[in-house]
């Protein structure tokens, strides 16, 4: 089953690389897709972009990996939903001599050729520091969690919590184990209900795009946006607008375009027999109203490729 695996054996047919995100509808994954596409057009390979049908469903992601193995793609770039559950399908791929590059989140074991990701924990730490600084080290805050079982956001939440607890002991967490759920609407309702209960809150942190946006809407609706410190994660046009309006005091950004881009680049290099790096960190950044016009931050906030 390895006939079309060796590079250059069949010059006519393009290399086929499956890129498997954790979901397909968040802005974050759109950026990864854009990066992957850029890499694909540069290196003249074909990418198959396909996530689990239900956002963040481990079992379905395993199914997608298996189905691409069945299809016999040349390589798989995978953002694993679970550092453990995806090990077996990745090993199955290896057995079929399909190389795997891991992006975004970690996978246990050594069955992949490269790991391209951000340090999510570090992202949480950045958010915690900004929160502490803006609140001058004291105040009542919420941390709204994303969804039970989601590894990357759990890390961000942990980074935030650890930082706040260690560096700003006078900050009081009113809420820290409420989950926003996977859609904007559920996040909106949660934030609304929480604000009704604790109208005197001074700071809020959300660990991903959908929860950030839902909370932003609730703040705007409650006429509290801009009056409290609100720190979110990831970017989308509405969030950029929020930042500009002063409704959001900070967004932790990753570089998803780069992540997607490098993930595919690494894979192609490997397939073409070129040397690759085993681990690449694409970095996290804190964007605020002050630095949002910096060219680098601008490109992170509004990835060109999305246009």
């Amino acid at each position, binding site marked *: 089953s390895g006939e079309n695996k060796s590079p250059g054996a069949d010059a006519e047919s393009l290399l086929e690389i499956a890129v498997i995100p954790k979901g*397909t*509808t968040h*802005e974050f994954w*759109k950026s990864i897709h854009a990066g992957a596409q850029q890499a694909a057009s540069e290196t003249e390979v074909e990418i198959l972009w396909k996530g689990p049908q*239900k*956002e963040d469903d481990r079992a379905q992601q395993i199914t997608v990996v298996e189905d691409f193995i069945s299809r016999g793609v040349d390589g798989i770039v995978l953002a694993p939903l679970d550092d453990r559950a995806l090990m077996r399908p990745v090993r199955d791929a290896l057995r079929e001599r399909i190389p795997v590059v891991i992006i975004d989140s970690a996978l246990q074991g050594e069955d992949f050729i490269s790991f391209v990701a951000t340090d999510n924990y570090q992202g949480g730490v950045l958010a915690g520091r900004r929160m502490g600084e803006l609140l001058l080290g004291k105040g009542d805050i919420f941390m709204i969690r994303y969804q*039970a079982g989601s590894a990357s956001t759990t890390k961000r939440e942990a980074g935030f919590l650890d930082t706040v607890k260690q560096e700003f002991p006078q900050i009081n967490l*009113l*809420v820290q*184990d*409420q*989950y926003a759920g*996977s*859609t*904007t*609407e559920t996040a*909106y*309702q*949660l934030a*609304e*209900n*929480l604000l*009704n*209960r604790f109208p005197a809150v001074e700071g809020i942190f959300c660990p991903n795009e959908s929860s950030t*946006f839902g909370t932003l*809407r609730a703040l705007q*609706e*409650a*006429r509290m946006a801009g009056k409290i410190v609100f720190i979110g994660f990831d970017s*989308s*046009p*509405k969030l950029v607008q929020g930042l500009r309006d002063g409704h959001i005091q900070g967004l932790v950004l990753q570089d998803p375009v780069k992540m997607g881009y490098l993930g595919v680049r690494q894979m192609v290099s490997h397939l073409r027999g070129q040397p690759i790096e085993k681990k690449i960190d694409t970095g996290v950044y804190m964007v605020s109203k002050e630095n949002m016009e910096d060219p680098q931050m601008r490109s992170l906030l509004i990835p060109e490729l999305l246009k």
Partner: protein
Amino acid sequence: MKTRSKILIAKEKMKDKSRVQMLLNWLGPFLGLILVLIIFSSIPEVQDRFLRISNLKSVATQSVIVALGALGMTFVIISGGIDLSAASNIALASVITAFAINAGFSPVLALFFGVLTGGMVGMVNGALITSLRLVPFIVTLGMLGIARGVAKWIAGNQKIDAPLTWVNELMAKSPRPSWLLMAPGVWIMILFAVAMAVILRYSVFGRHVFAIGSNEATARLCGIRISRTKILVYTIAGLFCGLSGVMEFSRLTVGDPTVAVGLELDIIAAVVIGGGSLSGGAGSILGSMIGVFIMAFLRNGCTMMGWPNYIQEIIIGAIIVAAVALDQIRHRQAL
């Protein structure tokens, strides 16, 4: 003499009893809701906050989307059907509305398109169910996937950003002309609820819906045009989903194709909690609205309590069963 006074006393007692009975009967449908309200109003931690006007307003606004969906679903369920595509339809309508506004249509037109899309999806449901004679479960399950897929397709798998217009004011908790007190969406919901309740109880169409759900063969025998009535029922359900989608867009200010996943179960649950029978022939608008508010207050109260989500899930699950069981016991006693 003696017997006569006995009869009199018995009659007096009957009167008393019947007064209590009447009160209970009148309160009957509300029992579950009252239970939920009492529970949260008696927990010291939240009691002062729970019954505040502003919280009630929040709950009302949060309920609009499910409530509008439930209005149509009540008709569908009474007619013996089910509409699993409701939630997808809401998402599709919200995307269409955002898309239309973005494309430069006037907000009124956009709203109209959103509602119409919902209605069309519903009509297709109805047409497939009656023409292919398929069970509603299958047709609307298929439509669940199709509508969601189309929504994502149109939106390009993203949220559609649309400029703010007055449509977005529909679900503002603090409405612009402040004498409105509640979001316009809440008023719209109340208006439609009353209208649909009247239609269900007093219109010929409403009676036909009940008859079809109770016994389709009898309904046919009595000259009711089953196909036409059913298509109308699903179209109405679709139109309400469309309106609900517009409200969803209004609330989120973006058209989000992934919104409301799984909401169909909430909508159906609200109707069933409110006395709707999945085998048809029973249900009421008032009941469904109470069902909606039971669920909304439960969610609201649990969140305010700050309980972890898993506890919330457990408690909500338990109270749904308890509320319906209570209603059941009341009914049994009434017989």
